[in-house]
């Protein structure tokens, strides 16, 4: 046989013919996966369709103005209307940030305690309680927050104001602390602790045993091991959990509505008893809204929808950027 120039062939096209069972399963899974996307898309479309008229009317002012008024004549025609969400958006962000700042450390420490310190029997009980908290109706959080939590939170708020009042964020003028974004944030924090704890606990539990053992074998205390191995490993998961919590806090309606003093005026002073929340605005106005105002509320829903979506996108970006090193 002569070994002259070898003809280099074109790469072959490689195909596989899946079995019937595989095709069926693929169909089922694809349907399931796409249906949630479709539902989400339809909701956005519905909100956009219903709210379009108002957004066109108000323009950018819909998110920059802080007014919500509508005047109707006797035959229910719109005489004048002015819709602006800025106070509600600022309030939403303020409450949610307060909630996340309070909830994340508590949740992370709970998760670490449950995974690395609690005895097995206590862990079982506490995990059940925390999971039950996640399923607790939010109106009860709201009522409890209003009746029980508010007085003590007000006390803390006054303390913060007394010592940190020189920071503009903590300024309170007039001197009125009841039903502030801070109070609402504390109630929200309690509501989102279960979900952040639960997510953190799951990621911490996956911290690789060989690295944990390596740290212990080097003479690490439990806390030193957690700092060196568990937290770097779980950091991105904790951020993800915090974002889930933030999403829930931004969309929370009833509890905030019960606690918060909703005022159509932009208020960045977190301790002052005036605030807003897009979801609470919808429930506040929905009952007696005219047809045109309902459209405005739908538009507000659309804005909230995109706010939540963009927060999640930013969170994903952060997780991708910072998550690698500990894995």
């Amino acid at each position, binding site marked *: 046989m002569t070994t002259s120039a070898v003809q280099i062939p074109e790469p072959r096209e490689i195909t596989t013919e899946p079995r019937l069972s595989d095709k069926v399963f693929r169909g089922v899974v694809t349907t399931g996966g796409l249906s949630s996307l479709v539902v989400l898309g339809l909701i956005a479309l519905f909100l956009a369709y219903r709210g379009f008229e108002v957004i066109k009317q108000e323009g950018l002012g819909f998110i920059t103005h802080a007014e919500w008024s509508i005047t109707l004549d006797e035959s229910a025609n719109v005489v004048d209307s002015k819709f602006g969400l800025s106070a509600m958006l600022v309030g939403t962000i303020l409450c949610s940030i307060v909630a996340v700042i309070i909830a994340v450390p508590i949740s992370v420490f709970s998760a670490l305690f449950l995974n690395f310190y609690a005895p097995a029997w206590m862990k079982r009980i506490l995990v059940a309680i925390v999971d039950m908290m996640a399923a607790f109706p939010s109106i009860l959080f709201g009522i409890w927050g209003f009746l029980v939590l508010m007085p003590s939170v007000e006390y803390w708020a006054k303390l913060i104001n007394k010592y940190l009042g020189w920071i503009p964020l903590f300024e309170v003028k007039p001197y009125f602390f009841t039903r502030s974004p801070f109070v609402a944030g504390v109630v929200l924090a309690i509501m989102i602790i279960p979900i952040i704890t639960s997510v953190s606990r799951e990621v911490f539990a996956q911290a690789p045993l060989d690295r944990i053992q390596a740290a212990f*074998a080097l*003479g690490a205390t439990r806390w030193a091991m957690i700092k060196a191995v568990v937290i770097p490993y779980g950091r991105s998961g904790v951020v993800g959990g915090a974002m889930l919590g933030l999403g829930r806090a931004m969309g929370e309606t009833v509890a905030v509505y019960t606690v918060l003093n909703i005022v159509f005026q932009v208020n960045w002073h977190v301790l002052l008893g005036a605030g807003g929340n897009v979801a609470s605005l919808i429930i506040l106005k929905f009952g007696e809204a005219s047809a045109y105002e309902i459209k405005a509320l739908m538009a507000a829903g659309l804005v909230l929808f995109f706010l939540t979506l963009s927060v999640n996108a930013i969170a994903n970006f952060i997780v991708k950027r910072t998550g690698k090193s*500990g894995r």
Partner: protein
Amino acid sequence: MIQTPESEKTMSSTTPSSLASVAQAKPERNGTNSAQGTGLETRGIHAWFGKNHVLSDINLDFTAGSVTALIGPSGCGKSTFIRTINRMHEFIPGAAMAGEVLLDGKDVYAPGVDVTKIRLQIGMVFQKPNPFPSMTIGENVLSGLKLAQLKVDNKDDLLEECLVRAGLWTEVKDRLNTHGGSLSGGQQQRLCIARALAVRPQVLLMDEPCSALDPGSTLRIEDTIRELSDTMTIVIVTHNMQQAARVSDYTAFFLSDGGPGEMIEVARTSEIFSQPKDQRTENYVTGRFG
């Protein structure tokens, strides 16, 4: 049987005479310190996982400045035994032990003993390389100091010394600030050895340190072990009898016949592979079972 000590080193034959020749090919060492009450001794070690009795009555003296290999079939309790020495055994839920581990005459299980100090004196290298991926190569080597909150005057000197002793310095000296994930498996394992050395342990336990590595890396690590053993006590668990013959001064044979693992015999490595006293040891080292 023709004996060719040098060429046998790289062959995988496991006839007793060839292993014996491998064992005899290296210089004889007795260790530097054989006085009673110094170094590492175990007295009547038993171990359990729940109700399962896995290790029975292990009495072993480890001489400072020597390498002791623990050999035996899977499930005979070798790894459990070395994990009782640095108190890693107790991390497994339901694990229990009895007996004494004496380090310089003091029981490491005595009440009031600071277990983190024990683990600083008795270092460990695991089967699977496990560097910390969130740290750079340099940080990995010095991680033990941080974890145990130890202070040293000159970190750079210590870093270089440990990497040199682990045989990794020339390969990584230009990238100490990069992450350890880019290293090969063998390099990662040597990084783990360097990390264990940085806290200056008196004893180094190695649990099948080469079983996940290629032959080249294995030989590299075996050289490292021989060099390290001048200054410390090394206990190595291995499934590779060639390796036991190549690196160890003493060999202990463990066996479980259905019940808890026991130590059948311990002797100079050359004796274990040439004239074992127990028939079961001979069967094992000649490859008749296990």
